[in-house]
């Protein structure tokens, strides 16, 4: 579903280019669960942002769901990201002014989905994530793990084809982290959601079916796992 070919991203610093991603090629199929690892500054977030259409590469080809993304206009790309992507962040990035319910509902509002339908969808996901009792609380009233749960619920509410998670467990303790990973696994296995996550933890990376190691903007190694 996703193909990156000879992708580069660099920043002009003085006279010379600093490469963040350097001639990188990567294919991801539908239904995969990919973990990206690598030292800090190796370009993981940049890669994820480009895949999520939040950032643009400097060079290279980028295909997503059969479209040549590198040829699309800004408007079309943002329409595409709205329809296909769900994002989960290390820092949760919930809107402090909105309740749990409203945070989850927000993407639906932006997609002009009717009120009654929104209600049903949000009720459904609250139920699935076991957070019905928290729906009227504000983010500041939740623990980190609960906030990330809300973040994931929000990312999934519009039924994205691709879930992108940048260090989703980075701010959580290991027990909370395990729960989130179990959830990802379940989403991937049972609901067929394609997931690309960035993580620093070998253990969490192994929840995926493929681990990609980045170093200095290049894929240093890639390994496929066979879970049974």
């Amino acid at each position, binding site marked *: 579903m996703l193909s990156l070919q000879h992708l580069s991203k660099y920043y002009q610093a003085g006279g010379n280019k600093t490469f963040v991603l350097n001639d990188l090629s990567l294919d991801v199929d539908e239904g995969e669960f990919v973990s990206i690892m690598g030292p800090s500054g190796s370009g993981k977030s940049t890669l994820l942002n480009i895949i999520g259409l939040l950032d643009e590469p400097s060079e290279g080809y980028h295909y997503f769901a059969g479209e040549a993304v590198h040829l699309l206009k800004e408007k079309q790309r*943002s329409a595409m990201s709205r329809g296909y992507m769900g*994002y989960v962040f290390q820092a949760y990035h919930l*809107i*402090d*002014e909105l309740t749990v319910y*409203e945070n989850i509902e*927000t*993407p639906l*509002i*932006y997609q002009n989905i009717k009120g009654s339908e929104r209600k049903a969808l949000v009720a459904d996901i609250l139920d699935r994530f076991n957070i019905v009792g928290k729906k009227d609380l504000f983010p500041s009233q939740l623990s980190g793990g609960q906030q990330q749960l809300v973040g994931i619920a929000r990312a999934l509410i519009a039924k994205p084809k691709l879930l992108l998670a940048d260090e989703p467990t980075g701010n959580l303790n290991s027990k909370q982290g395990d729960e989130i990973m179990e959830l990802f696994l379940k989403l991937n296995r049972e609901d067929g959601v394609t997931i690309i996550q960035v993580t620093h933890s070998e253990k969490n990376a192994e929840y995926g079916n493929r681990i990609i190691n980045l170093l200095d903007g290049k894929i240093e190694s890639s390994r496929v796992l066979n879970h049974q």
Partner: protein
Amino acid sequence: MWKSYLTSAFRSFKNNRGFAAINILGLALGLTAFLLIIFYVSDELSYDRFNTKADRIYRVNEDLKFGNNEVFYAVSMAPLAQALKEDFPEVENAVRLKNAWSARIKKGDVTIRENKLAFADPSLFQVFTLPMIEGNAVTALKEPNTVVLTESTARKYFNSTQVLGRTLLFDDHLNYKVTGVIRDLPKTSHFNFDFFLSMSSLEESRENKWLRSNFSTYVLLKEGADVKQFEGALNGFLQRHSGAEVQAELKMTYSSFEKSGNYFRLNLIPLKDIHLKSNRTGELGPNSTVQYVYIFSAIAFFILLIACVNFMNLATARSANRAKEVGVRKVLGSSRSYLIAQFLTESILVTFMAAVLAFGAALFLLPLFNQLSGKEMAVSAQSFIWLLPLFIGLVLLIGVSAGAYPAFFLSAFQPIQVLKGKLSTGFKASGLRNFLVVFQFSISIFLIIGTLVIYKQLNYIRTKNLGYNRDQVVIVQNSYELNDQAKLFKQEVKRLPGVLNATLTGYLPTSNWHNTAMFYKDASLDSKRSLFPETWGVDEDYIDALGMTMASGRSFSKDMLTDSSGIIINESAAKFLDLKEPLNKTLFKSNGGERTESNTKAYHIIGVVKDFNFSSLRDNIGPVVLFLDANNGALSIRVKTTDLKKVMAQIEQTWKSISPNVPISVSFMDQDFDATYRSEQRIGRLFILFTTLAISIACLGLFGLAAFAAEQRSKEIGIRKILGASVPVIVRMLSVDFLKLVVLAIVIASPLAWFLMYKWLQDFAYRVQIQWWIIAIAGIAALLIAFLTISFQSVKAALSNPVKSLRSE
């Protein structure tokens, strides 16, 4: 969608109560001031518009130049109204009004002094819209000794409005029959009378004299009449009618009169312009000036602008905090226009709340504001016809214009920039925000300087050496009612302990009495060598009793029989006459009628009195000639006492012993003087009020910005403190940036304020200088106020526990 805009707007207020409060309060304050000024200005602009034919009504003014003298009259000649009606087909109607000044009217056993009376032609009710409750509007003022009362006057005297045919006794000897009752005059009429006496009661109204001007003449033009053409024809008309009289009185033809540089002209002023644009000799009441309407409109606009700037500044300052929200929303799929709509909703909501508060406050404060401004404005159900659209218009205009910049600014954030933390979330030094702070403070400093100058000028007027001493002078205003016994009254009063002196005459620097006459340097009555001064008939105690000073010569004396042909002139008259040694020079005056040398009277100048002010301090002192006369208009008594009450009682006792039936009417000269400047004092007070408001609003904004900067830099402050920075160092660090802006505002505003106030002062013949320290005071005050505002926040931030602010990151 709307619901989500509103809920997030409300939540955002709740979570930022402080800023929301500053926003709403600042805007509400500004709007309140704006509304009060709007009330004031619209009241000023509404004068005389209640007349349904206002567009077609004009007053005829008269301009006169003779010799060195120029006079601009609001009054014109007795036969003018009738002649205009006869000569010009475009004149539909004309009416004359003449102030009757004062009368004593009997109500049962009591006598009441009334001061709002005027003689009027019967056509009054055809020209002006003064609806009759009782009586016939066509015939009401036809007969001599008839009177039309206002509704409240009728009730005052008869407890009823059904009073046709009843009579009122004027001054103990004249019976006036009531032939009509009209509604009370609107406050927004440029003349304001309670009694309209029939013009036919007045002998003078029938005089066919074209060189005497005592009547306010109004014409009603026919629909579609060409005003320009009519006004242009007036001078030919005047020449036709007055030529013979000019020839007889001045011994020259009309054309040679004009050839020698003199003129005698009529012109028109639209009724609707009188209140704001007319300041001539002989107005029916004090008018206002359009200048103040402009000044106050500008202030209203600026205050609103300052309040809007606060709003924008706080919104963009908070943008750092909201950047995250914008970023997340965009990642979740919000388009830019959604975000813009969301921020605009927020700003319109703030404006709405502020406007509700402001409208409430303005209505609540209106009575107080009336007191301050001397107006009688009221809000009725009818006012809502324009208040409601004004409300909606203001909310939308301010909400959108103040919210637009933050909305576009915030919605333009790039989501990854924000989420990566690349967008510096610190208190960004924004050029625009700095510009706006400078702008606000420039206006504030401008207003401080303006207020100081105006205040100083008004104070100067109040305390200026006027050339006479107005303190401790009691004036018996109606001594003329004692007739021949006025002199006796004066003698008796002079004998009272505590009374220093007394002078019997109506011609006082604080009175409205005016009389003019022509004086010539040569017996041949050559008008090129003439003077057209005010001529005041006074007695021998005048100079001393009023505390005037002789520049040379002597005052009148009882013992000098020749003083009946002696005159005292003021310095200004000496200057006009170009007399180096005026003493003992002779001036000639025509006795009227035949202009032969034998028909002139010679006066010799026995003294020159130092100039004293008698009209407005806006005007230069004109020439005055004092001569001995038995004028008994008023008795001015100079007292020297610590027990004024006792002296007053004795004066009244003396009066009663002479005239037990007529009540005495007294005033104090200093109060009469102050009354002349009451409207200026009011304007001064309003100025101070609005300036204070403007500065408060600007400071409120600065307070918010400072609070915000301190909050944003709390981590930095914490680190600096851990590294050993002292509280003063941190306060300085936080304050200096803002104070620099205030200094810049001082540099910008001072010359501008100096220039405009300098122009304003040119209107006054007697005026203060704008000293450098006025600007220094304004600058220091602005800096001090700003510093106090900022340091409150800075000190709070500097004193906070550094560990706390660091942990929260």
